[in-house]
């Protein structure tokens, strides 16, 4: 018998929940301008999230998945991507999307039942939010192939949850990315819960990161509540992809401190003690304590930030609520570049029906 291959999984954490910074932390740990910027995005995301959930409760928003407690993962992603890169998100990526220029009112429109919410005005080529689990991983490989094919130094990045790592599309995407050495990065937000199914019974694998090893790519596990570690591993992965050295799988360990969506009640299945313990590790509190203890943050700054974020969220909500309905013809006009002749009759029918309905309301 001989051993033909051996593997190990590294775990990165620089700033722990007790506000202790590891001596091996990268210089970025002392770049307070950047860290304060990231803190601002995370706080904005949390307020936005909370507002969206509240709007759903009062009937002004459709089903909404919050990213509460997982903001650092996506704040780091948005921070480490360049405008030319392409994000293939799943559906808790707000902190990344906001940094990429997606407007809060666009996200609200998407979950508020309006397709125009994915017609981002920021000029980015990002995919819209992706509901069918893990399918976005394959889009990221196709996008990355296009970059490589054209010799463009761009990177695609797909995000997914822990449940998604059980899906075929995830494995197929990893396999292709490893095989073709594509410039792509996969980030698993391992928030421990796929709706009600805990990580412990999702897979027999010790880590989710190791799933990338079989596909022939570097993998790493990271404390997803430690923004410093997140930025560090992402920068390495993005640089590796951009310089032609292929894909990376990152497993970011977090905890879903929220319901799966507003249609879910996590109290039915998440044990209270487990939740309470996880809450002590959450990323915003951790970064605030760190900034405080380094003399970079105080209550005045906190209040000013909260006021600014609340005001931004509020104006986005107003913009969303003031969005006029689409025309009935919009059902038809984006199906194909040109409407097939066979659909013109149905389009006319929809328009005429809409007019009668409109008249009835008036």
């Amino acid at each position, binding site marked *: 018998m001989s051993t033909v291959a051996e593997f190990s999984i590294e775990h990165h954490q620089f700033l722990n929940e007790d506000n202790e910074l590891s001596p091996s932390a990268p210089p970025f740990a002392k770049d307070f301008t950047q860290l304060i910027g990231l803190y601002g995005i995370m706080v904005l995301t949390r307020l936005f999230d909370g507002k969206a959930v509240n709007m759903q409760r009062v009937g002004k928003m459709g089903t909404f998945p919050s990213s509460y407690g997982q903001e650092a993962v996506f704040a780091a992603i948005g921070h480490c991507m360049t405008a030319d890169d*392409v994000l*293939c998100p799943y559906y808790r990526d707000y902190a990344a999307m906001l940094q990429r220029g997606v407007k809060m009112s666009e996200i609200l429109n998407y979950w508020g039942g309006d*397709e*125009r919410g*994915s*017609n*981002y005005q920021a000029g980015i*080529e990002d*995919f*819209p939010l992706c509901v*069918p689990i893990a*399918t976005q*991983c*394959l*889009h*990221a*490989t*196709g*996008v*990355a*192939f*296009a*970059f490589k*094919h054209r010799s463009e130094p761009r990177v*695609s990045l797909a995000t997914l949850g822990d449940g998604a790592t059980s899906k*075929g*599309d995830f494995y*197929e*995407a990893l*396999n*292709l990315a490893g*095989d073709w050495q594509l410039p792509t990065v996969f980030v698993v937000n391992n928030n421990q819960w796929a709706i009600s199914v805990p990580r412990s019974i999702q897979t027999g694998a010790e880590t989710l990161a190791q799933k990338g090893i079989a596909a022939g790519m570097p993998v790493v596990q990271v404390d997803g509540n430690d923004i410093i570690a997140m930025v560090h591993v992402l920068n390495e992965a993005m640089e590796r992809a951009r310089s032609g050295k292929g894909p990376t799988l990152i497993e970011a360990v977090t905890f879903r401190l929220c319901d799966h969506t507003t249609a879910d009640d996590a109290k039915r299945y998440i044990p209270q003690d487990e939740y309470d313990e996880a809450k002590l590790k959450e990323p915003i509190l951790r970064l605030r304590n760190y900034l405080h203890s380094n003399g970079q943050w105080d209550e005045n700054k906190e209040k000013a930030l909260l006021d600014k974020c609340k005001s931004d969220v509020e104006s986005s909500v107003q913009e969303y609520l003031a969005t006029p309905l689409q025309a009935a013809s*919009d059902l038809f006009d*984006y*199906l*194909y*570049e040109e409407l*097939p*002749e*066979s*659909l013109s009759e149905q389009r006319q029918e929809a328009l005429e029906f809409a007019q009668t309905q409109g008249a009835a309301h008036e």
Partner: protein
Amino acid sequence: MSEITLIEAVDQALAYELANDEDVVLMGEDIGKNGGVFRATEGLSERFPGRVLDTPLAESMIAGAAVGMAAQGLKPVAEIQFMGFIYSAVDQIICHAARLRNRTRGRLTCPLVIRAPFGGGIHAPEHHSESTEALFAHIPGLRVVIPSSPARAYGLLLAAIRDPDPVIFLEPKRIYRMVKQNVPDSGKALPLDQCFILREGSDITLVTWGAMVHETLRVANQLADQGIEAEVIDVATVKPLDMQTILQSIQKTGRCVIIHEAARHCGVGAEIAANLAEKALTSLFAPVQRVTGYDTIMPYFKMEKHYMPSEARIRRAVMDVMEYA
């Protein structure tokens, strides 16, 4: 100029478009050095290095990666080796390819083609002979195109690649090498979303597509000996459907038989018949008849000729319709 088969016409169209549009990329299983299991990509990986991609064996991956490429402005032409293996790619086709333009309000588009050989009659193993075009014809945002001759394979495939939206291009493999035609490599596309009238006639309209076009034409020619002039329509694009051409023909003939190899229930023939019931009832002299595969599982090859519409079954349906009082 020599005459070529349908499969050679596919190869010729792919080569033409690879040479003339640098955004075109072919991908699929065994399409590189091997030239595809049916040789649709024969010689192309040598002529166009880096653009004819042997992929890992994973159909959802082929479709999903093609969506990503297409969103970036490439024009991927993906081969699914047999239609029986396309089902693991259906999630990507329905949930993403068909919807990308609509769900981004035109910000991202999906100009891809998925080619797949389909249909029975070549004594193939299980899962290699079904005709399930109706699955895709049901999906808004897709085009479903089926050629029935070398010339139409060439012209329609060029049109499919140039189309800015996703096209499912189903190749009737029973006729891959059945007929030869002179197909000039002119780069000239044929129109999508249009039926082709292959034979004019005033007594009855025979509506069909794919390999069944050939049985139908033979029956039509035999009927002429009996003084019955059948109009034969090759639907070619089964989604979206060009009902205008079919309706105009029915207004002339008043009689219609629809012939397809796929199972009858919710087949594309049902949609055509429903349209005729809605829009041509007063033009019809007889009930519309369908000659189709049965609503059974496609049998293994020893019994496949009992499943597939034959000339005899078509002739009997035509005579029933002609004799209807």
